[in-house]
């Protein structure tokens, strides 16, 4: 009798837990099962400063997602950084397995003695509706034209992008709204040959106000397969240690603004003047900081119809910078609410991405972190011994202590912040098994199996990646939109989508590669929770045209073309229902 009561009680408690989703794991590590077998390897330099540089170049593990072959399944490109390391193009087989086709595509050779891959960006530079690929490198970037037959052609020499950059990030959007997507490249080191430097003075001159980095280069798309460097004309005379760039329309005026995250100093905020130029309004918008900006992602976390910004910095017991969650005030000013929302401390942060992993209609956040996870000894005392030395010249690499086999902010747990209805976030990473301790760099978010649940690819430095399949149980609705413009800016980069369901309006947009070392799918995804009906979808196209769709059934992937009144079903796979 007593046993039965206990059993019944336990069962009912268990059912209650299931109903609340407590304790269930919604991500499965499918890295090996999916056929992802490679390991990223850091570059080892061979110059007089190699032993010092080794501690500062644990970079280059990146992922860029796109449906490069137009089969309706998102594929992805990943970088290696070793001298003989091959970059990979993983073609989606449609069954959550992937095949590396980089060699056949002509994309594998991204590393050699003079170049190290750092990031990658898909964008359609020639408006042929095929994503082309920019490989971002310490050295010379590579631009590959997608020929549409599974092969790519290196068009760098004729593109106007040839030139030495120690580039680490890039985003693509049509800043002058001429219908051609332009490219913004962020560089870390200044353009010295880091493989064989002719001076030892190429390290950051300051930890907080360094102004001897690589800055930002703007390449305006000429519309004929070439680009022109318009950096100065566009208003980007910068020399910061750029780590990431993130664009979005901050003030909903129809053009794209830009946040520049800088290591060793001040992040910058540029407002688009609408005439092909930008104005640096950092002081007014976000104030002057001295932190180590690592990542920029935009998303409307509080559902107020304005896109907010998440920037990771370094937070550890020896450096308490804290992240920024910039709540958009709507007047081109932002307020940091990271403390209030519990998104302040993510260790040595790298990529962070807004996405709705549980389809409840609120933007969650996944954050990866960790600098170097090596031996048990810490590098912190070494670095602070240098910092506190009087009159130290930080720009001189010879003054920096070698890291050797020591660790610095290593073995840090990743965070999966669940959005608690716009009021704050709670970390659910451990529950869902996505709290690994590898040195994370990039996060690619996409629905790789077209089942309405967003999956995650995590690129780790000097380690194997993680590929997490979202296994959210059935019961929550969703919808996705692949937007396209028939003539210009074919993937509608910058388009905003406002979806109304159940009395709430959500805002999302098509971004052109936001997030450190990571580009997510260009599809716009909305979680709908229990709502069975989508009342209205309003699209504001990059051209400025507006379009409204009504009464779309949920749990579909739609293709919407600018100028066409109806959405077509791209893929109708609602496996959760």
């Amino acid at each position: 009798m007593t046993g039965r009561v206990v059993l019944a009680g336990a069962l009912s408690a268990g059912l209650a837990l299931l109903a609340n989703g407590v304790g269930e794991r919604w991500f499965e590590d499918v890295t090996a099962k999916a056929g992802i077998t490679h390991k990223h390897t850091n570059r080892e330099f061979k110059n007089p400063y190699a032993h010092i540089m080794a501690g500062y170049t644990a970079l280059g593990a990146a992922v860029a997602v796109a449906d490069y072959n137009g089969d309706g399944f998102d594929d992805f490109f990943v970088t290696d950084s070793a001298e003989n390391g091959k970059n990979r193009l993983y073609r989606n087989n449609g069954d959550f397995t992937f095949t590396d086709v980089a060699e056949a595509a002509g994309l594998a050779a991204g590393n050699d003695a003079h170049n190290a891959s750092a990031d990658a960006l898909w964008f359609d530079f020639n408006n042929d509706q095929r994503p082309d690929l920019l490989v971002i490198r310490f050295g010379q970037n590579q631009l590959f034209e997608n020929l549409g037959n599974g092969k790519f052609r290196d068009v760098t020499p004729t593109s106007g992008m040839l030139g030495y950059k120690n580039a680490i990030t890039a985003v693509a959007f049509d800043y002058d709204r001429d219908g051609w997507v332009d490219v913004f490249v962020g560089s870390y080191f200044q353009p010295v040959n880091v493989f064989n430097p002719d001076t030892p003075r190429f390290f950051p001159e300051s930890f907080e106000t360094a102004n001897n980095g690589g800055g930002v280069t703007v390449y305006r798309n000429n519309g004929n397969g070439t680009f022109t460097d318009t950096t100065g004309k566009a208003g980007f005379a910068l020399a910061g240690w750029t780590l990431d760039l993130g664009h979005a329309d901050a003030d909903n005026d129809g053009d794209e603004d830009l946040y520049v995250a800088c290591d060793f100093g001040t992040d910058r905020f540029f407002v688009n003047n609408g005439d092909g130029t930008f104005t640096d309004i950092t002081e007014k918008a976000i104030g002057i900081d001295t932190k180590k900006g690592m990542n920029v992602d935009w998303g409307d976390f509080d559902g107020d119809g304005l896109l907010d910004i998440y920037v990771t910095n370094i937070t550890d017991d020896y450096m308490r910078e804290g992240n920024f969650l910039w709540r958009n005030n709507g007047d081109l000013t932002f307020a940091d609410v990271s403390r209030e929302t519990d998104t302040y401390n993510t260790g040595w942060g790298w990529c962070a991405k807004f996405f709705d992993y549980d389809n409840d209609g609120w933007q969650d956040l996944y954050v990866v972190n960790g600098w170097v996870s090596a031996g048990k000894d810490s590098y912190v005392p070494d670095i602070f011994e240098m910092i506190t030395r009087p009159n130290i010249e930080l720009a001189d690499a010879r003054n920096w202590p070698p890291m050797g086999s020591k660790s610095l902010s290593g073995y840090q747990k990743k965070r999966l912040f669940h959005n608690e209805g716009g009021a704050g976030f709670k970390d659910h990473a451990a529950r869902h098994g996505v709290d690994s301790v590898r040195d994370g760099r990039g996060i690619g978010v996409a629905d790789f199996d077209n089942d309405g649940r967003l999956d995650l690819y995590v690129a780790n430095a000097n380690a194997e990646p993680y590929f997490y399949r979202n296994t959210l149980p059935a019961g929550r609705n969703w919808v996705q939109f692949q937007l396209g413009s028939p003539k210009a800016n074919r993937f509608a980069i910058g388009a905003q989508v406002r979806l109304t369901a159940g009395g709430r309006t959500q805002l999302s947009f098509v971004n052109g590669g936001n997030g450190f070392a990571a580009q997510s799918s260009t599809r716009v995804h909305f979680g709908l929770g229990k709502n069975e009906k989508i009342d209205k979808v309003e699209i504001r196209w990059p051209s400025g045209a507006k379009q409204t769709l009504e009464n779309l059934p949920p749990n579909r992937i739609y293709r919407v073309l600018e100028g066409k009144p109806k959405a077509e079903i791209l893929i109708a796979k609602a496996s959760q229902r």
Partner: protein
Amino acid sequence: MRQATLLVCAWALAGAGAWGATLADLDRYEALLAKNADDIRAGSEYRQAVIQLKQYDRCIKFFEELVAKSPQAANAYLNFGFAYVDKIPDAGAITQVILANTALSHFSKSIELKPSWIALYTRGNSYLYWPKIFGKAPLGVKDLEEAMKMQKQDKLRPYHVRAYISLGDGYWKMDDVEKARAVWQEGAKLFPNEPRLKERLSRSGDELAKYIDETLDPNKRVDTNLHELWEDQ
């Protein structure tokens, strides 16, 4: 005569932390300190005015010159160290370390010249702000134990509660939770209404760790107003 009266009024307000400082006040305090470098009260009130006006670099430069002229003024060194501490919340994370490190050297000089309770307490407490990896907590505990010995030979003064709080924090940082609680409890018997002791004693485990971690956050301004010292005289 009138000027002296105004300054006394300003001092009284400075003690309460409720006055609007002006650059002219800085001039006046600097003149006072030039006459008596060891004037701990003038030095403290000068710094409170500096904090209001964010004139940290002026203050540091002033004390640098002052101690050069008066190398035996222990309280000038103490205020010199505090001048660096005062700048910490407005500095970047790396500069904070440099400032804290420099402050420690001036506190040490002050102790070398005159091992007073305030100097020992100050240096001991400063060590506790350093991350564990630097191993400074035992140094802090040593100073705070010394300050505790001194205060136990004195009559009980309101500011003595600080040593109970900080010494307990020091033991806690050295992972001796039992000893930490014992010191806080001892303090609570003498200062039963002290909220900072109550807060610590009401917490344990991660909650206590979070509380102390937040208390010792260098981004939060430390109250370096020394008015309690003379208010009790």
